[in-house]
C-alpha cells in the first residue's frame, strides 16, 4: 500500500496553499466542474427523483450484499469468467500477479482503477518484473511523474499545460527534443501515438469497474477516452479490479445509477463509452480476450456494514463532493495524503487505514454541507465526518489543547446562567478594548485565529441581554 501521508495533512495543506502552479490549476478546474454539473442537473427534470432512486438501489443492494455476491459469482462463472475473492490488499496483489505470471505477461495496460491505487498494484508488478502502463491520459502523466492521482476521476487535476510539456519532453526521449507544443492538441496527439504502441503490445489489460451486475455477471466501465475499452479488448487476458460494494442487482438498476453518474461527475448526460463486459470471447468472435478474471476485494468494506459508516458504501465515485468542497478547492487532492481525497476521502480513508492515521481528514471540513447537497446517492458526508470526530475524541486522539478547550466550554455550557454571565463579561471587555479599531489583529489565546485573520470586536451587548431588555420594555429586538 502507498504509505499514507494523511497524518501530515496540515503540513501538506500549508505547502499546497503556497504552491502557485497548483493554485492556478485549482482556480481553473473547480468552477468548471461545478457549473457543468449544475447545468446537467437543471436540464433533466427528473434528476432529484433519480438521486432518490440511486440511493434506494444502493441501500437495497447493501442490505442483501451476500446474496447478490453469490448470484454474481454464479452468473460470471456460467459466462466463462473467473472470480477471485480477496479479503485483503495482499491477497488481491497476489491474485493479479499470479494471473499475469500464468499469462507470461511482460507489459500490462491499465484503465483507471482506484482499487488499483488502493492496493498499489503498479509497484507490485514492477517489483516482479512486469511493466504496467497507465493508459488514461491523466493517469499516464502522473505515472511518468511518479505521483498519486489528485482527484478520483481527473487524476491530473493539479497540472498545468507547462507540466504536461515538460514531463513529455523528459520522458519521450525518442522524439526530437526541439519539437514544439503549440497547443493542448499537440500534447494529446503525442500521448495517443505513444500509448497506441503500448495498447497493441500488452499481454494483459487491467481495468477497474464502476459497477458489477449480479443479474448477468457483468462488469461496467465508464470512460470518455476509449482507453478502458482498448485495455480490455486487445490483450489476451482481461483482469477487472472491483471492491464488493460496486455490486448492483440488475441492468435496469445500473442504468438508473448511470443516469446520475456522468451528470454528477463531469456534467455530461452520459459518458462517451459505457461498456458492459461479461466473460471472454465467444466462439466465432473476431476479437476480445481469451481470459476474463474479476479480482473482488473486501479490504475493510464488510467491516463498515452495520456501523454508522454503512452509508459511505453507497458511493459511486463521481467526485461531485470534492468538486464542490471549499477545502479541496483550496488545497487539492495530494494534501489528503492517500488515494481518496475530498469529503468522500475524509470519510472512507479512516475506515480503510485507521482513524489514527487519517484523523486529520474529517477535521478538514467546515461542515458547509455542499458535498451532501450534490452527492447523487445522498450520503450524509458531514454527519459521517462528525462520527469520526466523535470516535477520535473517545479514543483520545484529539489534541490535548482541544480537549481542554472543549472541557472548559462544556463546564460553562452545563450551567446556563454562569455561561451567560461569562459571555456578557467577555463581550463587554472585548467591546471596550476593541471599540476604536473595531477588530483585533492579535488576541491572547486566539493566535490560531488571528495569525491569519482579524477577529471582529463585539459591539456591546450579547443577544440574550438585548432580548431580555427588549422583553422588559415590551418591544421587539
Amino acid at each position: 500500500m502507498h504509505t499514507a501521508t494523511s497524518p501530515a495533512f496540515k503540513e501538506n495543506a500549508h505547502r499546497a496553499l503556497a504552491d502557485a502552479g497548483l493554485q492556478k490549476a485549482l482556480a481553473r478546474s473547480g468552477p468548471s466542474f461545478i457549473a457543468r454539473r449544475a447545468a446537467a442537473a437543471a436540464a433533466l427534470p427528473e434528476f432529484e427523483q433519480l438521486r432518490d432512486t440511486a440511493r434506494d438501489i444502493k441501500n437495497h443492494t447493501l442490505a442483501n450484499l451476500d446474496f447478490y455476491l453469490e448470484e454474481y459469482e454464479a452468473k460470471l462463472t456460467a459466462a466463462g469468467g473467473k472470480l477471485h475473492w480477496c479479503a485483503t490488499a495482499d491477497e488481491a496483489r497476489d491474485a493479479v500477479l499470479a494471473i499475469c505470471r500464468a499469462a507470461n505477461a511482460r507489459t500490462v495496460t491499465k484503465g483507471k482503477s482506484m482499487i488499483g491505487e488502493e492496493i498499489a498494484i503498479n509497484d507490485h508488478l514492477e517489483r516482479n518484473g512486469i511493466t504496467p502502463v497507465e493508459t488514461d491520459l491523466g493517469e499516464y502523466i502522473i505515472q511518468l511523474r511518479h505521483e498519486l492521482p489528485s482527484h478520483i476521476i481527473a487524476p491530473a487535476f493539479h497540472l498545468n499545460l507547462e507540466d504536461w510539456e515538460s514531463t513529455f519532453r523528459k520522458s519521450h526521449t525518442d522524439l526530437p527534443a526541439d519539437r514544439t507544443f503549440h497547443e493542448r492538441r499537440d500534447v494529446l496527439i503525442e500521448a495517443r501515438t505513444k500509448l497506441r504502441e503500448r495498447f497493441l503490445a500488452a499481454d494483459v489489460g487491467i481495468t477497474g469497474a464502476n459497477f458489477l451486475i449480479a443479474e448477468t455477471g457483468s462488469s461496467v466501465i465508464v470512460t470518455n477516452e476509449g482507453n478502458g475499452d482498448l485495455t480490455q479488448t486487445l490483450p489476451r487476458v482481461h483482469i477487472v479490479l472491483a471492491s464488493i460494494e460496486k455490486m448492483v442487482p440488475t441492468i435496469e438498476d445500473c442504468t438508473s445509477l448511470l443516469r446520475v453518474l456522468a451528470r454528477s461527475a463531469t456534467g455530461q448526460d452520459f459518458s462517451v463509452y459505457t461498456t458492459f463486459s461479461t466473460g471472454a470471447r465467444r466462439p466465432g468472435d473476431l476479437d476480445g480476450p481469451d481470459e476474463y478474471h474479476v479480482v473482488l476485494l473486501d479490504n475493510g468494506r464488510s467491516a463498515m456494514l452495520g456501523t454508522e459508516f454503512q452509508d459511505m458504501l453507497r458511493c459511486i465515485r463521481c467526485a461531485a463532493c470534492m468538486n464542490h468542497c471549499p477545502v479541496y478547492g483550496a488545497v487539492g487532492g495530494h494534501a489528503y495524503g492517500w488515494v481518496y481525497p475530498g469529503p468522500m476521502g475524509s470519510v472512507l480513508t479512516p475506515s480503510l487505514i485507521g482513524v489514527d492515521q487519517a484523523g486529520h481528514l474529517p477535521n478538514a471540513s467546515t461542515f458547509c454541507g455542499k458535498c451532501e447537497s450534490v452527492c447523487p446517492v445522498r450520503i450524509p458526508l458531514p454527519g459521517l465526518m462528525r462520527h469520526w470526530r466523535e470516535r477520535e475524541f473517545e479514543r483520545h486522539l484529539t489534541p490535548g489543547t482541544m480537549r481542554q478547550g472543549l472541557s472548559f466550554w462544556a463546564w460553562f455550557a452545563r450551567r446556563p446562567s454562569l455561561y451567560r454571565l461569562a459571555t456578557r463579561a467577555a463581550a463587554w471587555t472585548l467591546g471596550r478594548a476593541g471599540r476604536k479599531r473595531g477588530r483585533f489583529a492579535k488576541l491572547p489565546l486566539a493566535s490560531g485565529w488571528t495569525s491569519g485573520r482579524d477577529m471582529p470586536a463585539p459591539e456591546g451587548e450579547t443577544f440574550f441581554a438585548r432580548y431580555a431588555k427588549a422583553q422588559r420594555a415590551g418591544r421587539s429586538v
Partner: protein
Amino acid sequence: MTRETILTAVRRGLRRGPLPPDQAAMLRGRMATHPRQLIPARSQLPYPEQIDLFLRNVEKEFGTVARVPDPDSVPAAVADYLAVQNLPTSLVMAPHPELQAIPWSTRPLLTIREGRAEATDLVSVQHAFAGIAETGTLMLPSAPERPTTLNLLADTEIAILRASRLVGAYEDAWDLLRAERNGMPRNVMLVTGPSRSADIEQALELGAHGPRRLHVVLIEDRV
C-alpha cells in the same frame, strides 16, 4: 476459504445468517423480471420527435449524422462523407448480413475488407444494433458479425443505423437485446460521440484513444 470469510463478514455486519429461502426467491424473481425505475420523460417521445431528439443529441456530443431513405443510398452517403472529410476510401467493415447486402459496388472507389479492425485501419464501418434517443447513444454488442475493434482502432467510425432500431430509453435497447440474444455477448458498448479527453487543463479535446470522428448513417426505413 476467502469466499466464506468475506460472506461471513458481510452477514456479520448485516446481523443475520444467509437469507431465508423465501426472501432469496423473491430477490431472484426481481432479477428475473428486472423491473424498470423512473425513465425520464424525454425518452418517451413519439417517433418523429424521437428521431429529432436522437439527431440533436448525436450532434451535441460531436457526432455527425446523414439521413438516407434506404440501404441502396448508403454507399453514396459514405463516399460523400469521406470525400468531404478528405479521408481515404479503404474501409474495414463488420461482416454483418445487413451490411453485406448493401450494394457497395455502386461506388467502386470504396475498397472494403470485412472483419475486425487493425491498428493501420483509418475508417471502419460498423453495424449499429440500436440507437438510443435519450442521449444520442449507439448500442454496439459484440458478435462474430460485429467486432468490437471497429469501435476502437480506426480514426473514423461510421455506424449504419436503421431508424426502425431507434428507441427512446436505454431500457428499451436492453429489452431488444434480451429478446434477440440468448445471454449477454462478451461486450456491449454504449457509444455516445467520438473519443475525447479533458485531462489537459480540463479543456475538451476530441480523439483521445478511440475514434476522433463518429458518423452515423441513418436509414429511414420506418414510417
